[in-house]
Structure formats: C-alpha cells, structure tokens
C-alpha cells in the first residue's frame, strides 16, 4: 500500500522547487524583438502550426512584463545600445535566446562594419539557436531546452 493510494483525491506530492520550476517554465513570456528575417520565422512560431503559446509562452510588447528575450535577427551597433537598455529593464530572472547565425556570431555579416559579431558580446545568452533562419520547430526546440534549464534551477536558493 503506497502513500499515493492512501491520499484523498486531488492531492499531489511534490517538492517546492519542482512546483516553482513547473510554473515558471510554462509561463515564459517573451519580448517581441524581431530585428531581421528571423523575425518572420518568429511570427510563424506564434502561428497556428507551431503555436508557441501551447507552451505557455506568450509574446509581450514591453520588457517589464517579459522573462525571455528572443533576439531574432541581425544586431547592429546602433541597435545594441537599445538592446542593452531593454535587457536591463527586464525583471530578473531573465533569459535570452539568440536566434539565428547573425545573432550568434555575426553570421553572413561577419565582415560588416555595422553588425555586432555575436549578441553574447553585449548580453549573456542562455540558448544559441543555429540556422539561417531557423525553422519554427527549431525555435520550439530552443524553448524546450530553456524550459529544461529552468526546471533544474533552484529558484529559492541562491
């Protein structure tokens, strides 16, 4: 006779860390930050076929309500200072997905005078997503990887 069978209905047993992680990973609100052609794939990911919202991941228009920023596209030096400002406005804990070759390392614009050679030179990145541009399924994979990372975090302990 296990403990589960002795419990009354509608009661589950879990740890606080597990429960918090479960709640946090399924409410990853992301800041809409489309910079170039990757943002087209980002829009597709929000569409009915990939449907990123079934993971509880809703687009937001302001950094103050966002937990995640998906950098979708080519980041220029002119935009980089704005990106830093947006990132600093997000409440902690905050996560970053670098989507596509351009934001990973400069990609196609490796030799360009105006393009930042990788977003991680500006802000820390949690998931690097290769592709030019990545398909919506790949972006969902990145989101799931980030969810696994969040689930492992001990949120209440420093």
């Amino acid at each position, binding site marked *: 006779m296990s403990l589960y069978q002795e419990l009354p209905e509608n009661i589950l047993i879990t740890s606080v860390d597990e429960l918090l992680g479960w709640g946090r990973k399924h409410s990853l609100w992301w800041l809409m930050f489309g910079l170039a052609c990757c943002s087209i794939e980002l829009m597709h990911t929000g569409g009915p076929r990939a449907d990123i919202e079934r993971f509880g991941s809703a687009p937001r228009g302001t950094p103050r309500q966002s937990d995640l920023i998906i950098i979708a596209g080519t980041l220029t*030096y002119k935009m980089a200072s704005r990106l830093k400002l947006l990132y600093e406005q997000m409440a902690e804990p905050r996560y970053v997905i670098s989507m596509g070759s351009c934001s990973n390392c*400069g990609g196609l614009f490796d030799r360009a*005078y*105006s393009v*930042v*050679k990788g977003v991680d030179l500006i802000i820390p990145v949690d998931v690097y997503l290769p592709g030019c541009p990545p398909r919506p399924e790949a972006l969902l994979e990145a989101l799931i990887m980030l969810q696994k990372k969040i689930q492992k975090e001990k949120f209440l302990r420093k």
Partner: protein
Amino acid sequence: MNFSITLLEKLAQEMAPSTSEIIQRESKMPILKIDAKDLRKVMLILRDNPVFEMKYINNISGVHLTAIKEDGTLDLKGVEVLYVLSSKLDFSTIAIRVDLPEVNPEIDTIDDLFVSANWFEREIYDLLGVNFINSQDLRRIMLPDDWQGHPLRRDYKENASYNGMPTTRPNELDAIRVE
C-alpha cells in the same frame, strides 16, 4: 523615349562643351558626365524644360573609385556620384555622373530642387563622406551620430571597439587548433 540623343547632345553643348561627355548613348539610361560646378544648372534644365520634365529623382548613388596597384596597395581615384532622374512624361531615365576628387570631395546640394534628394545625399555623406554644400540638413542617416569615418570608403579602417563593444570575435577554433 521623349528626349532624343541629339537633344541630350544639345544640352551637353549648352552646358559646358569642353567638360561634358555622353556615355552609353545606345542604352535606355544614357549617362551624361559633367563637371561638378555645372550640376545645379543641368538639374534645373532637366527639371523645368518641358522637353525633359525630369521631375522625379530615382536615386543618387556614390562609388569610391579605386584600382589596385602592382604592389598590392590601393590607388584611390576619388568619388563618383550618380544622379538618376526620370521623366514624368514617359518614365525615360537619364543619369548624371559627377566625378569628385579624392581629397575633400564636395558638391552643391540639390535638395532645394528635388525634395526627396536630401535623404540620398545624407546617405552618401554617411557612407562616403561627400560634403554637400548648402544642404538643408546634412547629418548621418543610418549610422550613429558618433560614428568615426565613412565605411564605404576603400581606405576605411575599422576600430577595435565601438562604445565599449568589441568589433571582432575571437575564433573558437583557435583554442583547439593543433600547431
């Protein structure tokens, strides 16, 4: 094509017989090469003369002309500015080409003759460093205001960092490369 090549030659004669020259006369877009000081005069005739009626400016583009010398260094040959105009009568097109010197290239503005010319001129100033004299608003249009240099010039050297951001990325493969 509403203007014939003879009209264009007449215009070239009227402008400056010694300094103007017609390139690509068989093409759909003949190029009239003129001296920089004649630019406003030519533009006014093309815009206001009822034969031409060139009221629309397609674009203004610029090229930094170079050649590679035998020892591998660059031979800088100045900046070429190309004004492409269209006629509102039958959309025929003409290009006006002006060659500017390598050191301190400057030319009269035409943004009081064509309203849309200002943004094109700002772009050329931004990327090639051409100074448009008497422009109404000559600022950088795309790059940040504190940018150093004009990046489409062939002798442009990229700085190591911009506002604390490094402009190069170390190659990760260098760490595991076996000599």
